């Protein structure tokens, strides 16, 4: 699937070059690749809560790379990139799986439903099972 998405991106880029579009041209097919800034989310369908970024000028973001790496990046109050975690991502239909990289001593696999993927917005749904009941959280990310 990932190869397929990359193919679509490549196809989109090729079309863009051939048609002599100016710099405002965008890839028509939404892709998960690239940077997504954390905006906030909802808990069990409640009110939208904004994510508190520590830095005013640089916001925390996740970035999907073509080589299957996913990084999560956090800035501290001094606006220094203070935390970067690397995982492996796989998108299959709307099932996003984030798992530990091969050399990581800890093995993990986290699964999300991609509820929305447009050029500007990514919404991931996550379900948490705990003794008190099921919690559904939707995280929203934006391109800028």
């Amino acid at each position: 699937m990932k190869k397929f998405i990359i193919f679509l991106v490549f196809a989109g880029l090729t079309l863009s070059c051939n048609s002599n579009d100016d710099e405002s041209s965008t890839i028509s097919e939404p892709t998960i690749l690239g940077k997504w800034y954390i905006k906030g989310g909802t808990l069990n369908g409640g009110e939208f809560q904004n994510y508190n970024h520590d830095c005013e000028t640089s916001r925390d973001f996740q970035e999907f790379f073509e080589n299957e790496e996913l990084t999560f990046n956090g800035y501290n109050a001094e606006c220094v990139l203070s935390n970067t975690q690397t995982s492996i991502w796989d998108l299959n239909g709307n099932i996003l799986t984030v798992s530990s990289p091969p050399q990581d001593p800890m093995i993990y696999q986290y699964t999300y439903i991609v509820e929305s993927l447009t050029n500007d917005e990514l919404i991931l749904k996550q379900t948490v099972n705990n003794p008190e009941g099921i919690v559904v959280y939707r995280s929203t990310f934006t391109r800028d």
Partner: protein
Amino acid sequence: MKSHDIRKQFLQFFESKGHLIVPSAPIVLKDDPTLMFNNSGMAQFKEYFLGNAEPKSKRIADTQKCLRVSGKHNDLEDVGFDTYHHTMFEMLGNWSFGDYFKKDAINWAWELLTEVYKIPKENLYVSVFEGNPDENVPFDQEAWDIWKELIDEDRIILGNKKDNFWEMGDQGPCGPCSEIHVDLRSEEEKAKVSGKSLVNNDHPQVVEIWNNVFMEFNRKADGSLEKLPAQHVDTGMGFERLCMALQGKTSNYDTDVFTPLIEKVEQITGLNYTSNDVKNISEEQNKINIAIRVIVDHIRAVAFAIADGQLPSNTGAGYVIRRILRRAIRYGFTFLNTKEPFIYELVAVLSNQMGEFFPEIKSQQHLVTNVIREEEASFLRTLEQGLQLLENVVTETKGNEVSGAKVFELYDTFGFPKDLTALILKEKGFTYNEADFETELQKQKARSRAASEVTTDDWKILIDGNVETFVGYDQTENEVKITRIRKVDSKKDGVLYQIVLDATPFYPEGGGQVGDKGILVSANETIEIIDTKKENNLILHFAKQLPEKVEAGFVAKVNTDLRTSTSKNHSATHLMHLALRTILGTHVEQKGSLVHPNYLRFDFSHFSKVTDEEIRQVEAFVNQRIEEQLQLVEHRNIPIQQAMAQGAMALFGEKYGDTVRMIEFGNSKELCGGIHVKNTADIWHFKIISEGAVAAGIRRIEAITGDAVKDYYKNQENTLAELKETLKNPQDILKSVVSLQDDNAKLKKQIEQLLREKAKSLKGELASALQVINGIQFLAKQVDLNPEGAKDLAYELGNLGTNIFLVLATAEENKPMLTCYISKELVASHNLNAGQVVRELGKYIQGGGGGQPFFATAGGKNVGGIKEALERAVDYIK
């Protein structure tokens, strides 16, 4: 008799014969390196046959979900074309672990079939192993004699090794077997041809329904057989075939195991399926029937695999599941003309049918439905895309044979199936080079094999029997004997030896805690144990070399420094888990954990940043419990219901036994098999060293305890001392740093002011340097400013007229930057674009950039390219 009742009667019958009825094991295997899926009823009992564990009862019966789609038992490509092959099937089985043997097994099988299910005796045939002198296995006289008491001798058939010697795989338990076959043909057909001649001859109506395996041997890696420690019975009766026999059908697909699914497909597609009794159907109808059989078979395999936790993916077991589902989608696409997802709609039917015996399909129905729908949508898009790509390939092909490499590329990169490619090519009058395709396929397989090659030798057993125990909760040192050894050679780790001890104090990796390290010491030598893991219920100690005298007595010594540090981090993890749930809320769920001697790592669900204040609270919560000196209360063998009733935290999705180990420190209670401190005071102190997100809605905390905290504070103290020295030992360090910051801010302001004045003075100088070329005021020049100053200057100069074209270059700190300004009027009248200018000129400084049509900047790496970039700028107005 309904299939539901057939299953129920089987289990009730064996319950009445003293068997314990157990649930089916998951279809996906997680801790068996030799198998991806449960492919037989016995797989979940393998440890008992190998003598690695004790069964709950010596007599067990169950119905097991099985999948035969990879390795030696692979029925995938047969499914759909006949009426009896399946990917997923149920195997009814009864088991004796060193208890009853051939006599009871055969008599009970006969009683169930003829008296409970009331299959006419004259429709049954049985087979007995004829023996194999090459492998030193004799004729099964005992089975023959027992059968002779129940059935006419002319209905007993001697079978060869292929049909009557059961083996699970290339290695493992095996033994002679006795099969029961049923003849389902009409009386007229029976009169024409004897059923006996059709046994084991692939006749669709003379089929094996029950196989009684008498497990006596273990097949070793070199192919030889050795006697198992105890004799066992392993029987398997294909549930779908049994239903066919009892419901008077001639096809498994005509039983009520499949008809509800078939009816749903008919309803969705508007096409009809014809039962096996309808003869002389058209070729078109035959294709429809095959496609429907493929779909209703494959949905069962895929749905149960997903319900058991195996999502489709591009590797391993996940890839097998994806292939099965894609095969179903392809048959629907090609023969049922389904261009939209529809297979997911069958999940609800399956859940209604089988939810009572397999509750996981009901509880996971929503997830299974979603995953299949998305897979379908995704693959249907691939198929459409593939059709377009294939069209391009055909257009580019000279002659009428398409390159096999191209077809392989479509198959490998885009998942476009080769038989569908062949079909489409045929319709267009083309073929493809199959030999080239095969070459590419083999090349890929070779690459894959080379990457994952592991050679595992047979176990060399030094002490027979199920003697291995774990004593590591109470001891870190023990006198031991080696019970078995084997060599494992892998590309990744090289040659390692796995050593099993009779009573090991070494904790094997599990529950997030790393495995123990240590040494094995004998009178003559010391062997280093570099890791400890668990596999098939055996604790494996990894060493780079074997002892010279493996039969000697050893003292197994765990590295207690590492063990102690690990136990502190493990207990602190439990306390932190409670702290997070108390401080952040009960939405916190443990998602992952690593307990290492040097640190602990804990992933948990939480949807915002953990603030500095919350981190302080978590640290205080844990340290408070350390100060309270809470004693460890270990419930080593407590019924799981009792532990849960006491409020123990369990991991979601983890499979626990009937009894569990519960670790308690005050009100922190968790089900856990790991190593812990005896008292929280042993942890000494707890300190969080980092907090951040690892994925959406999942935060990660790393923390340290004990000596690592002492080291942490020592380092902080050293840094502070160095800082003090650097600042010339001020009385008040903080005041001194604040003063430096204030001075720095003042100096920054002064520099900015100076640069602004410099830019003003440059403005006059550069204004007089503007040249008029083709009616445009032009200037391309390097200026001694920072990029911000260059921008201000460009705007200032731009205000001097309506026909200005500027390119200014800067090289602050050796970083080249180009700034282009074009009057808006010029942009409109001359179709100029500053963004395009800097992108093109940016190449000379090995960089790029962009911006708006009237103003843009580009950064680069090559200062030496500035000169040429400025020289080329004039080209845009000539």
